[in-house]
């Protein structure tokens, strides 16, 4: 049985959309139901939905063999899993954003509110800018409005939420897509079943997924 942990929400929806194009894995997941576990005995595969930040935990300790999750979560968690494929979907970016400035130059920021303290502090360390990172769990856009911080580091897709809250993007930090990760031990012990699943997905990924699938593995 191949165990696949899928990040709840947008990633799960996009993955399911991809799986709909595959021959073997459509109709296993039903995201309209409230179930969290979807089993296909015939395909020897089980999908389960978990909170995005928990995906690297499940995969890291081998409770799941494979995980589907955004790159942002992987960067923040410093996962020990193999990152084997870019699903090229759920495209978004992590940005530094803040109140719009008339001058057009980014103001000096000292207090940064973010859901991603590790990504934010690595970014500012690299730029040698001294900042104070404030970790929040949601509604990050609120922080500069109420004066909790000067700016935010957050994930944006269209930028609508930012605009509606009077914020603009100062700088792009990185691009994010959904990734397939694999437990290091499973990748060797269950390589065959992982390969079969990964190549089915890679066939339907836009432009073909690059994936460290060895052509030579048989067992």
């Amino acid at each position, binding site marked *: 049985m191949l165990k696949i942990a899928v990040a709840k929400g947008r990633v799960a929806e996009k993955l399911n959309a991809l799986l709909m194009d595959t021959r073997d894995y459509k109709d296993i997941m039903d995201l309209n139901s409230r179930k969290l576990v979807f089993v296909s005995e015939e395909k020897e595969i089980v999908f389960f939905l978990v909170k995005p930040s928990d995906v690297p935990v499940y995969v890291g*300790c081998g409770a799941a063999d494979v995980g589907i999750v955004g790159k942002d979560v992987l960067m923040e968690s410093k*996962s020990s899993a193999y*990152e084997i*494929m870019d699903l090229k979907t759920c495209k978004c970016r992590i940005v530094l954003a803040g109140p719009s400035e008339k001058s057009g130059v980014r103001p000096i920021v000292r207090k940064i509110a973010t859901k991603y303290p590790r990504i934010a502090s690595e970014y500012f360390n690299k730029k040698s800018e001294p900042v104070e990172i404030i970790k929040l769990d949601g509604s990050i856009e609120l922080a500069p409005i109420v004066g909790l911080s000067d700016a935010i580091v957050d994930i944006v897709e269209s930028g609508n939420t930012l605009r509606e809250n009077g914020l603009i993007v100062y700088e792009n930090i990185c691009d994010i897509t959904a990734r397939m990760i694999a437990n290091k*031990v499973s990748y*060797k012990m269950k390589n065959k079943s992982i390969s079969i699943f990964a190549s089915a997905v890679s066939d339907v990924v836009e432009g073909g997924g*690059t994936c*460290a699938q060895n052509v*030579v*593995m048989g067992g």
Partner: protein
Amino acid sequence: MQSFGIPHGMRDILPVESSRRTILQEKLRQYMHSCGFDRIETPLFEYYELFSGGISPVEDESIVKTIDRDGRVVVLRPDMTIPTVRVASTKLKGQKKPLKLFYMGNIYRSDKKNRGAGREFTQVGAEIYGCSSKWLDLETIIMAKEGFRVAGIADYKIDIGHVGIIKGIFEEMRLPEEKKAHIISLISEKNLVELENVVLTLPLSSKNKEIIYKLPSLFGKPEDVFRSIDGIAVNETIRGSVDYLLQIYRKCKDMGLGTNIIIDAGMTGNMKYYTGLIFKAYAHGAGDVVISGGRYDGMMKEMGSDTAAAGFAIYVDNMLEAVVNKNPEQYEQKILVIYEEGKFIEALRYSEDCRKAGVRVNMVNSGDVSDPELYSKEYGYDEIVNFKE
């Protein structure tokens, strides 16, 4: 009452689990001993310098440090190989080679990447100094395989690589050290997504780019890997390493280990530590590497000793996860002796005789246990023997 916690990452091992661990460790100890290896014990605290300077197998920030009375930085050992090398190249320097040592004990790593954020791990491992090439590496593989056998684990894989392959590839290209380190980490993470991005920006010939790009995928069934590896064997270092792996694999096959072997040409390790063959072993049921080992002549040189050396460590915590039979088969008779005051001497004689005969006997004064039947049930005694006045 105040509730007493324990520091983050530490854990208590309660009787049931402890007895499983003890049995496994004892089996491993006996096996190492039976191979003619002698045990050494090194201290829990070591000087920080021993693990700094790039030879440490763990990142600097995951070493648990503290400051000694004299102001020097001491660490809880994050590894057992380096202390063993320290002893082998100092106090045991004069010993005739080959020198074969084994150790058992706890190591400490506060590795954020590590699952469950545990910080205390038990290792049993062996080190061999001063054997000629092939036999040295073969012996470590044999012992790893036998480690699984004594633990009762049948479903396992030994994944073998050689650091000479990546070394040889870098001989072909002139790259700054930090770029090399980055590429090595991406290859060992099998992160083709990033590897592609990084390699694209490098001033390399398209052939070299292709070689780097191909490396993470070159693993699997030995025959298949050897067949497709020719394309990357572009110089002597690589060809030599591949030939060496092939020789080792043939010997493994002769030992009947063929189906348990995986060859991974893209396996990398700490390049200052490892110099030749490296291996990792996995087992069904264990979410993490169970055994890791390899050849580290380079570290010996770094520590001022010019001998060949290889070794491996078994991560006992991970191996226990893979042990299928959770209830150790070792059956021991357990007796509960309940005595009244006047019969104490008689009960004691009886108990001591039983103990000499290998039976576990728990002596309890009749006044200290209210319901012997219940007590006996909770601890699983086979029999209650009463000494009444």
